[in-house]
């Protein structure tokens, strides 16, 4: 029936957002389903156009069966569009969420951590969107950058400025504010200024203890 595929698309999409903690990996872009829905919608469009063309104004106002048929097709096409956009919107939300969670930047796209590759889950258009969003945010951040980093975490208010951290994975040698160089090796503990290592915490190299 018209709209079955679209329903399938949105229910799957909805389900994937229900369990928010822990965050699930973004499902793979449902390209085959989307192509089928677009096809169905174009067919509905063609059918509506040809029906309207083959019947004159007169029969359109008198032939109730025809009017009903066209209405159903019209609504089905509109509904398909709505479902497609709901799906895209939902994913845009998820993509942005991951961008922010990663402390901004695109590095996480290629992350070699245990999470499946985000890049392969995205459509080419979504990758474009993500790059575009990244550029927008880089511009937006610039005004503040002399004083603060907008993409640093806001999940918890700051406490003391010194923080005890443990390296969760090797981060290599990092130059901190003030020029201090530290070689972060997995398992080692440090007491450092929070502002200097905030980014490494967000990115998952360090963990507060």
């Amino acid at each position, binding site marked *: 029936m018209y709209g079955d595929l679209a329903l399938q698309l949105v229910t799957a999409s909805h389900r994937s957002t229900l369990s928010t903690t822990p965050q699930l990996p973004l499902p793979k872009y449902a390209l085959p389903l*989307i*192509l089928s829905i*677009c096809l169905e*919608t*174009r067919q*509905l*469009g*063609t059918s509506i*156009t040809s029906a309207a063309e083959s019947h004159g104004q007169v029969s359109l106002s008198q032939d109730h069966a025809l009017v009903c048929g066209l209405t159903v097709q019209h*609504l089905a*096409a*509109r509904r*398909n*569009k*709505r479902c*497609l*956009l709901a799906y*895209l919107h939902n994913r*845009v939300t998820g993509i*942005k969420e991951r961008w922010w969670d990663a402390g901004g930047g695109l590095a996480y796209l290629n992350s070699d951590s245990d999470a499946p590759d985000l890049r392969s889950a995205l*459509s080419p*258009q*979504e990758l*474009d*969107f993500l790059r*575009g*969003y990244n550029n*927008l945010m880089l*511009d*937006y951040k610039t*005004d*503040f950058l*002399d*004083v*603060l*980093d*907008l993409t*640093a975490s*806001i999940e918890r*208010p*700051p406490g*003391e*400025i*010194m923080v005890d951290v443990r390296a969760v994975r090797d981060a290599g040698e990092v130059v901190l504010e*003030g020029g201090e160089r530290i070689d972060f090796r997995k398992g080692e503990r440090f*007491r450092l*200024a*929070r*502002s200097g290592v905030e980014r490494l915490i967000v990115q998952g190299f360090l963990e507060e203890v």
Partner: protein
Amino acid sequence: MSSFFQEPDSDDEIPQLPPELPPLHPVASSSRASSSRPSITQDSFLSRLEATASPRPGIRTDHEDGIGEEMEEEEEEDEYELEEGEVRRLGKAWSRERGTGGILAWEGELVDSLMDKLEQQQKLVDTLKSDPDTSEEEHFKLVLVQTEMERVKYLIRSYVRCRLHKIEKYSYHIILTPSLHSLLSGAELSHAQRYTELLHTHYSHSVLDSLPEWLRKMDDTYGDGLSMVTKPNPNLPVLIYCTRDCGEITLDSGEQAALAKGSTHLVKYRLVETFVLSGQVEVL
């Protein structure tokens, strides 16, 4: 002074004292500092607690204790607001932004002023930190200064990002509604514009371009009244605290609700918007 540097790690775990504390523990003497003030009997304390609508003016016996003053503070609200510090004002703006669904005015002056001060302070901190003549006391002050700086930076960050969240959520609505533009900073308005374009390009390239032409618009309204242009819902309830008397409002039921000073309400945003915008009520 030196003890701070010697035992930085042992701060976190302060052993809890047993309840059967001896009466002459140093704590008792500190709370006894209040004996120099007019003593507050339990009765007067409670009667002040109960005075809700119109607390008696001039009861201000405990200048020593900032916390707990709030019940007396109300009478001096007007004066108080004038001298309220920028950090506290931003705290309120943040709370208001977080507690409402729609776009509120950008607190540009406040943010700019705090950003300037943060920048100056950062320079000072950098200079003093690298100066070998900086005394131990100054170093200690620097720690406190930086602690506060981190707090203010966090507040600005959270405030700005809360707005960004709303701006992205309602970007197209903002673009289509010129009356909202004055509420945004230049950077925010430009972000709304560019974000809308980015999103629409994404939708077009992903699916809309593959649909019949009459289905490619971005501002449809569906049969159930839902528009593609997402708008804030003015009927969502907000929690407000009246810092002054705001008169009465008429609820949808036709009943009146008095927004008395010091009262708290959960009410549709639409009904109290003017008070929120004028700052007569705080949003929780």
